[in-house]
């Protein structure tokens, strides 16, 4: 499981950033990037099946737990190798490493998903694709929007 993005819906409001930062004591794990003047999209941990961060972590702090790329802070020495091993730049070290933990400590699940005003984030991998397919079907049925 990971948090997936319907890129069509992101409005660049950065609510996910502030929420993630808030529930993680000041260290957020999601960053909204603006691409020119035409789009914004949050960048966050993919919980890769083959995760570079877990491969370089010599202490075992970063490891896979099923689908999730998990982090055991007790084992972390703050070396910084993990931050350099993430292709998406979404692992950080600041005395200790931190990364998206899918809000494990939060009963309701990921804060970013709950807070997104545009409803752009979800744990349903298929959602964005489904919405796009439904839109196309309706556009065809209605003879196109324009």
């Amino acid at each position: 499981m990971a948090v997936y993005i319907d890129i069509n819906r992101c409005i660049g409001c950065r609510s996910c950033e502030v929420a993630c930062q808030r529930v993680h004591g000041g260290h957020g794990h999601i960053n909204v990037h603006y691409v020119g003047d035409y789009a914004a999209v949050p960048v966050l941990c993919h919980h890769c099946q083959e995760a570079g961060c877990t491969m370089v972590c010599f202490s075992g702090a970063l490891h896979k737990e099923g689908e999730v790329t998990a982090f055991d802070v007790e084992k972390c020495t703050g070396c910084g190798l993990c931050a350099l091993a993430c292709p998406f730049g979404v692992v950080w070290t600041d005395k200790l490493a931190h990364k998206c933990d899918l809000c494990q400590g939060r009963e309701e699940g990921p804060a970013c998903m709950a807070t997104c005003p545009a409803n752009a984030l979800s744990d349903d991998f298929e959602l964005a694709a489904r919405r796009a397919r439904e839109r196309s079907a309706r556009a065809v049925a209605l003879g196109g929007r324009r």
Partner: protein
Amino acid sequence: MIRVDARVCLGCMSCSNVCPSQNITRSEDSGRRTVHWKRCKEECDLCVELCPAKALSLVPWDENIPEPEISFDLVACRICGSPYATLPMLQRIESTLPAEMQKDASGLEWIRICPVCRRDVEAEGTVRQMVLARSRK
């Protein structure tokens, strides 16, 4: 006292973080990271155990041996130029990750760009088609 094998030290942040007595200092200035190991009489060996490169060892106290200090030029990001990592750390990543993981779909060697640029590249790639469509309207 701490002895450092400068041939294998990565210039990472482990020992300076874990030392409970602040005997190991790390500073960064104008694209250079310097680690300095002070003389210590401590009984612990956290820095030795928790060094990813096994570069440290403990030797008996000796006033005449100078305190080890190593400086690393931080490698510049290939996109934005900001210094972001020591070369030995990057080389460690490159020798650990499988070769096929080290280039992205467009052939970009992402290990040699900084985390901020990695996020930008990811963002741009994700929305490329949509940006084209929106800018045409």
